[in-house]
């Protein structure tokens, strides 16, 4: 024990100097690490802020203002824009449209993706090839696929592909996209989205399937279970819960945000037949230049998606461990 009166010995001084040095070095290193961290994060944050957060904030501001043909409004009108959008029959009917669309596309995609995943996963040879082939349409743009569906496959003239096929069965050509009754355009819209997004959801299901341990199946066969529906219903499907929930969630959100195929296929006087909210808001904000109404509509739509996702997550137990 050293008293304060006696000067510290050389070893003690050396140790103290060593400690100071190492503390200094640690501070320097942590300073360098902090600097590195920030210099990587700042460009990212900058981009996010400028292109993501600021527009969202601006949009919220615009939704409370009377902004027609100007992005810097001077008069603020409180919740009037929201009231007008919710009272707009076209907006509410667009919400009904996309509910119908979700009602068609979500179960269909879910069932088809699951079926495809089961089939592809059980192939013994060239599994990678089939996975790639079904995934390939994901690389195709929605606009391109919409144009091909509209002008080539479901063309209303006698020489469209679908019309040529039904002609073989003796039917007259149908104007698939332009007819209101019966609403054939739903077939066009659902099939184009199905073709485009089946690959992604199939991959998610395949990943989920491959996580199921094989021993479970072997144990089930030993216990006398039949291959097929019994093992699927009792083993496969329950263990795919997380994958199923992700697929459902992603599917519903994507259906809410549907724009490309509607904008390109249902054009001109056909637009009224199936006009989802985003197409309507696009028209209001960018063609009519009513940015106040458009922003209010966008915020309403966002809130709907968020609430729906939360409810769905709650209901399906998303994130809960198995």
């Amino acid at each position, binding site marked *: 024990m050293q008293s304060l009166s006696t000067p510290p010995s050389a070893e003690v001084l050396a140790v103290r100097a060593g400690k100071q040095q190492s503390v200094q*070095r640690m501070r320097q*290193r942590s300073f*360098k690490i902090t*600097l*590195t961290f920030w*210099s*990587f994060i*700042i*460009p990212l944050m900058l981009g996010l802020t400028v292109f993501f957060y600021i527009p969202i904030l601006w949009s919220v501001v615009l939704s409370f203002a009377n902004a*027609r*043909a*100007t*992005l810097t409004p001077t008069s603020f009108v409180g919740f009037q824009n929201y009231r007008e959008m919710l009272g707009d029959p*076209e907006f509410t009917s667009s919400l009904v449209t996309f509910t119908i669309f979700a009602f068609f596309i979500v179960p269909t995609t879910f069932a088809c993706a699951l079926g495809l995943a089961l089939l592809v996963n059980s192939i013994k040879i060239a599994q990678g090839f089939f996975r790639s082939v079904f995934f390939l349409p994901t690389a195709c743009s929605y606009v391109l696929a919409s144009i091909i569906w509209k*002008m080539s496959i479901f*063309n*209303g*003239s*006698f020489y*469209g592909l679908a019309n040529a096929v039904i002609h073989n069965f003796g039917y007259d*050509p149908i*104007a698939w*996209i*332009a*007819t*209101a*009754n019966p609403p054939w355009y739903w077939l066009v819209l659902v099939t184009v989205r199905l073709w485009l997004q089946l690959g992604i959801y199939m991959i998610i299901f395949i990943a989920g399937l491959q996580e199921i341990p094989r021993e479970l199946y072997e144990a089930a066969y030993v216990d006398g279970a039949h291959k097929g529906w019994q093992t699927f219903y009792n083993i496969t499907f329950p263990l795919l819960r997380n994958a199923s929930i992700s697929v459902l969630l992603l599917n519903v959100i994507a259906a809410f945000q549907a724009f490309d195929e509607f904008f390109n296929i249902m*054009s*001109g*006087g*056909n*637009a*009224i*037949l199936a006009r989802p909210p985003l197409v309507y808001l696009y*028209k*209001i904000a*960018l*063609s*009519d*230049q*009513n940015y106040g109404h458009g922003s209010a509509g966008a915020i309403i739509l966002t809130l709907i998606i968020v609430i729906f996702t939360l409810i769905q997550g709650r209901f399906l137990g998303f994130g809960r461990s198995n």
Partner: protein
Amino acid sequence: MDYQRYFNAAMNRRRFLQYTGALTGSAFLAACASTGSGGSGGGGNSSVPTLTQWYHQYGETGTHEAVLRYAKQYTKANVKVSWVPGTGNEYPDKVRAALLGSNAPDVFELPGPTVDQVKAGVIEPLDDIIADVKSDFLPASLKPLTINGKVYAIKMINDPTFVYYRKSMFQKAGLQAPTTIEELISAAKKLSSGNVKGLYVGPDGGVNALYLIAGWASGGDFISQDNKIAFNTDRMAAAYSKLHELNASGGLLPDAPTFWWDPSSFTQGQCAMQWCGLWAMPGITKVLGDDFGIFPFPALDSQSQPATIDGGWAEMVYAKGKNVQAAKDYVKWLWIQNSQVQIDWNVGYGFHIPPRVSISAQADKLKTGTASQAVDILNKYGHANPPLWDSTMDTALTDAVSNIVKKGANPLSELNRAADKCNTELQTLLS
């Protein structure tokens, strides 16, 4: 300790890369910022002001070279021309978005000005340019360009629309050009056999092509002279229900690869008649020679007249630009004074009618045959909507007409509903 040396060395290299990356990044941002503040007048004469001008991408060959030529001919300013691609509403949307920013074009074309643009102060009144020759324009040409009595755009081209028909097919069926909508429907039915149909009006049952024309053909109008919504009348309802009849008759070509403004279906013989515009006439003449004629969209009945729209494009000036007076002088030179440019632009590449009546009388190509018929149709039956009729009202009316034509909804109740919507919009604009 070895790892520490390694760590230090790696950090140094990494730090060097970070700093150079940050430097280039900020230099890039700085460069972007500077080009946004109006580029200097490139390699031109620096004693005259620089103007930017936007055109939409016209389809006809030679149009791009022509506009560059006109810009070069003008010596009092350095005009930089942008040839902006996009179909349908894309070009107008791009212009409107640009008008909100700091890089708006000084001179640009649009179908017409809007009340919102005037309220926001982004477009310049052009009354002083047009004052001397105002009477030389058709009233229907000036109507969509005038707001509160001031003219905000100078018409560049006039585009009437009408029905083209195959003379040979009409002769074979023993038909004359229809004078009422009823006759048009029966002609379309009679001329349909097998894969050839009577009439093509677009892949949406004619809504986009005829939602205004059919109304005018009933003798009514959409906004009255005293600024009231005027289209929810019985006669208008009757006209639109005739469109529904046309759709149900089976005489329409249901679909085609192109919209009604492209005459391919007509020239390829898939329909005996097609709704199209003057711009298509040269292309049709090349394929069909003189085996075609035109007639305007027929009247609802003997109490009204046929109708066409006085469509086209008009030149406008950005009010908050740096050289507003120079831009106005340029527009005056192009579309008021320079008759040679006006004739060349209208009939040299595509086919349109010069808006100044005296100059359109000088164009040789418009003096004979079906072209002169088209000029006649425009002069006698041309209609247009005032700028108070904006795109919100357009959508409301299009939706109503779609419901009537496609779903067979009750015409008058649909029109009343649309009229309510339009009225709310109108009151907002008038306030």
